[in-house]
């Protein structure tokens, strides 16, 4: 792969590639496996480099929610956003909003043990043949957080057409292989820099 092409991919990810070059690059990516692999690697590296700022933004959000709840004197059951700030009116009596709950790090994989195929299924014996295992509606093995995957699939039925598709894209883009490939890509680039 030429250095020019690598630079174009990098610029494309950063949103800095001129429009005239984007079309050609997109067509190239569609037919070139190596280019796509480079695209994925560069996109991941960029995300990893920016990851600390993302987590800080989320932590600030949680603290902002806590501060807003504590500062509001009254409540009418409506949440509003004024002047670009998020103000949440105080909950009604008896409802304890855990605004200071420890925020779980933003991650696509919440419970590594959930949904593992090493766990015995609940209903019947695991099979490697063609028969299916009937599982409860809230069990899904395809993600380490199987229940969340299942919820998303059910939620997609109620999303607008484009929204429902994007929800499904997130599910099939969330397989463990993605994480493994990403880890390999990051290791490869670290070694290259040494």
């Amino acid at each position, binding site marked *: 792969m030429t250095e020019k092409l690598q630079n174009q991919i990098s610029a494309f990810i950063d949103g800095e590639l001129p429009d005239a070059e984007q079309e050609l690059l997109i067509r190239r990516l569609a037919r070139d496996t190596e280019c796509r692999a480079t695209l994925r690697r560069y996109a991941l590296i960029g995300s990893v480099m920016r990851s600390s700022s993302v987590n800080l933004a989320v932590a600030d959000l949680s603290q902002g929610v806590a501060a807003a709840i504590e500062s509001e004197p009254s409540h009418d059951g409506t949440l509003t956003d004024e002047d670009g700030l998020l103000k949440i009116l105080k909950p009604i009596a008896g409802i304890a909003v855990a605004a200071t709950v420890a925020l779980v790090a933003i991650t696509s994989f919440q419970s590594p043990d959930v949904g593992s195929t090493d766990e015995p299924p609940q209903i019947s014996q695991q099979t490697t043949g063609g028969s299916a295992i009937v599982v409860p509606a809230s069990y899904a093995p395809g993600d380490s957080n199987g229940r969340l995957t299942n919820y998303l699939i059910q939620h997609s039925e109620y999303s607008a057409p484009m*929204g429902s598709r*994007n929800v499904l894209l997130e599910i*099939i883009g969330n397989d463990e292989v993605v994480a493994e490939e990403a880890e390999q890509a990051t290791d490869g680039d670290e070694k290259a820099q040494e």
Partner: protein
Amino acid sequence: MTFLIRTLAFLAIAQLSAAPSYATDDPRDWLMRMNNALTTLNYTGVFFYFNEGRAESMKIVHRVADGRTVERLVSLDGVGREIIRDQDEVTCIFPAKKSVLIEQRREKGTLIGAVPQYSSRLDLYYDFVPMRRERLIGKMTRVISVVPRDGFRYGYELWLDEETALPLMSKLKGDNGNVIEQVRFASITVNGVIKDSELRPAIDTTGFTVFRTGEKQLVKRLPGTGWRAGELPAGFELTANTTEGITDSDESVDHLVYSDGLASVSVFVEAVGRKGELMPGLSRIGSANAWSTEFEGFQITAVGEVPAITVEAIGASVRPQTRDARR
């Protein structure tokens, strides 16, 4: 001469019929047409999906035939994860785990789902901005921006094909205008012939473990029972409410859907104790946020393609319904 006049008249009528009917500049009309196109047209295409540092190339096949809709999404990278959905089921194939998940669809008979009707009510929460015309993959598009008026919903920027209204590129935007997610087509073919073979999995799933969720068993709740969100961001209303029994269990799962007409949030409530519980707090898959908590022996989870603060606010306010608090 009469033959010539009739021929010219016929051609004129045919020309008028073939002319694009999307002459209006109202972005709401374009969005309606986009939803209609996504659900009723036959199309295949290759696109790129960008989210949180991930760049995936995917293929989509969408066919409507004999009143039945089938859609297949395939990852072209890695080991070929894919989802196939039709009127009755959603099938997810995960090669890395050698597993197949088949989910029974609740709303059988259509893949249209919640096609939003763009009423003037949406103007209270979003600004719909026509932006410009732009050429993309050789097609002229209308670029439309949907800008939320508060921080409880995401915005969109859409490049809609002028001929078909299909979105050739879409960007999901956060409250500071940052792009959270992007879908961009590299190629698309509309109204071509789609064979059955194009809608079948490309992977040989022999030896895969197939998990099939049981048939949905709807449970009818007594009036005044069940769960409701006590606090909602402006514009969000309850649009769906079902209770389903869990296979081989006396327990059930309540599923509430709140929507402002464009964005939607699902709330799931089920008893604590069953395998697969979520950790409390916030989690995310792509641009979808989820917030989970426990209340008096029940796990409450709000999930949707909305900012984290929205799922947290809705999820945290869900309580058992009483007759007085019923919405």
